């Protein structure tokens, strides 16, 4: 029961890193709080698994300190940290029954037999594994095996954090949702710190209280799912979260207006004059096609997703995705577009610029 502090943790797989590119993980400061569920989200190779392995002790970071509570565990071996880990592919002990699998970490820690049996029964009940307790673990389905992996972590009462490394990769799509809800239920019941690595934004946004978006070894934004959606701090977050991602248009910003091509767009805040590497970002949900108002756009195609329609349009030659209101039937080749000023954000050099309220 503790917090985990990353104090300038960085890691390079080469021995003498010279530039930022040599780092699998660039220096990171963060405090993971007890009882919260975090997701590490990012594309392959962004350093999320490296970070997870540093926390679990499978990798010793080249720089920085890792604290569990007040204790410096940077160099402690895995077995002396109070963590549990669930891997991408289910890890079970083939020759053992489900009950023996669950008892294994406790037996290794020389716990008394009756206490082990009681604890195993308790965890099995929580994970709905009780009917299978005496079956060989090897014959079970992937999702049951993954529950066993999780169970082996949960039986230990000393566990302060559970780490998940893309645990739903090999699970049937139909069972993914079920297993994810089970994870959430376990999280609520046990009040544990959970860290969940994934490249699937739906998984991350539905599972976690806080999402850490990573790219090229850097944590580009840490926030709640709402924050990531509404106010991405970095253009990468805008692209990566949401499907389709955020629209970014090169612009010149001054005061409350942005100039995009020949059009003037009203912003929700006031900004100093910005011209260099400036883009405005706006989610397709806040760009609406209209019958006549606003700047003129050329319609290239319309995708119908059932509950919403998205139009791919060009505004002065710049590609843009906009929502099509239900009321709009015939869409010509040219129509108008409006932007919701509160959701038009300004980015300079990929980083969001905070405006002053107008």
């Amino acid at each position, binding site marked *: 029961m503790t917090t985990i502090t990353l104090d300038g943790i960085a890691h390079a797989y080469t021995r003498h890193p010279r530039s930022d590119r040599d780092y699998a993980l660039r220096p990171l400061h963060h405090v993971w709080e007890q009882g919260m569920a975090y997701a590490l989200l990012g594309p392959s190779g962004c350093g999320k698994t490296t970070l997870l392995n540093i926390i*679990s002790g499978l990798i010793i970071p080249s720089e920085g300190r890792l604290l569990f509570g007040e204790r410096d565990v940077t160099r402690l071996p*895995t077995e002396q940290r109070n963590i549990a*880990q669930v*891997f991408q592919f289910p890890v079970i002990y083939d020759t*053992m029954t489900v009950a023996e699998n669950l008892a294994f970490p406790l037996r*290794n820690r020389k716990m008394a037999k009756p206490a082990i049996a009681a604890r195993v029964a308790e965890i099995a009940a929580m994970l709905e594994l009780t009917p299978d307790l005496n079956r060989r673990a*090897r014959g079970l389905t992937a999702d049951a095996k993954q529950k066993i*992996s999780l169970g082996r972590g949960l039986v230990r009462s000393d566990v302060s954090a559970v780490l998940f490394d893309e645990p739903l990769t090999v699970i049937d799509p139909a069972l993914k949702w079920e297993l994810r809800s089970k994870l959430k239920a376990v999280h609520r019941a046990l009040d544990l710190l959970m860290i969940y690595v994934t490249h699937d934004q739906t998984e991350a946004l539905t599972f976690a209280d806080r999402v850490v978006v990573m790219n090229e070894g850097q944590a580009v934004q840490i926030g709640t799912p709402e924050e990531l959606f509404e106010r991405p701090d970095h253009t990468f977050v805008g692209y990566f979260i949401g499907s389709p991602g955020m629209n970014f248009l090169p612009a010149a910003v001054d005061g409350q207006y942005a100039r995009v091509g020949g059009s003037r767009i009203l912003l929700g805040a006031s900004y100093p004059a910005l011209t260099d590497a400036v883009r405005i970002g706006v989610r397709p949900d806040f760009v609406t096609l209209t019958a006549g108002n606003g700047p003129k756009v050329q319609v290239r195609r319309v995708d119908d997703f059932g509950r919403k329609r998205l139009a791919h349009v060009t505004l002065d030659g710049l590609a843009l995705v906009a929502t099509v209101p239900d009321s709009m039937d015939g869409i010509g080749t040219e129509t108008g577009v409006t932007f919701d000023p509160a959701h038009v954000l300004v980015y300079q050099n990929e980083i969001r610029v905070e405006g002053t309220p107008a």
Partner: protein
Amino acid sequence: MMDKPWNNKAWFFILPVLVLVLFSSVLPVMTVVNYSLQDSMGVNNFFWNGDAWFRDLLDPGTEIGARFADALLRTFAFSFAALAVEIPLGIAIALCLPRRGWAVGISLVITALPMLIPWNVVGTMWQIFARQDIGLFGAALTGIGLPYNVTQDSVSAWVTIVVIDVWHWTPLVILLSYAGLRAIPDAYYQAARIDGASRWAVFVNIELPKLQKVLVIAVLLRFMQTFMIYTEPVVVTGGGPGSATTFLSIDLVKIAIGQVDVGSAAAMSLVYYIIILTACWIFFTVMTQLERRGDS
């Protein structure tokens, strides 16, 4: 054409193979079967002898039967001794080999070297190596006061033959085990560390179960090869002292070529063949059954 699951034209394509198998296996074996049922009074003068050779051979009361039973027992004992050393030793060495880095290639090549040496060369090498006067092995053992003498002492002869086979063929077990160990995903070791498993627990609960499949192959191959051992004892001990290291294959050659007792030898060959076949079949069935039971 593809709507029926069989096609008579296919026979044409496997015909060359069938002809090859006919000449390489079927005809020689049938010749042996032919010999085993007849007796000969001289060159090409055969007459029907029924199952007499087989009855004599399988009855330990007769001279040939006793001889056969002894050789069979010795051969089984040898296979057992060689396997009992080679399998655990091979696994142990495989566990010690490096898993990554420049040392991997070097260790594997050095490990595999003995397997590349022909049997009779191995025999000759060890014959010299085991000599008490000029052989490093024999002279060293004699030097520290052990009663070691390959040609006079049957225990020495046995130990030497087993050591030769271990030296020559443990590398096969090592390479197979090493391949099996390398196929275990890292996550298993990581999970075991998190679960606080000891080195022994990792071996028993992860490595050994994952090695089961390659070990089936290793034991099967080593059993067949040790059961057919011929060259090394012939070169090193000549089957002696007395008949202490006269294994089935050696006895067979003595009867067939030494005594030109073709009928007896043919019957013996067939029984020998059936024993190997049956042993392998039983072994394979038991192992695959065990595995299947593990899945359910």
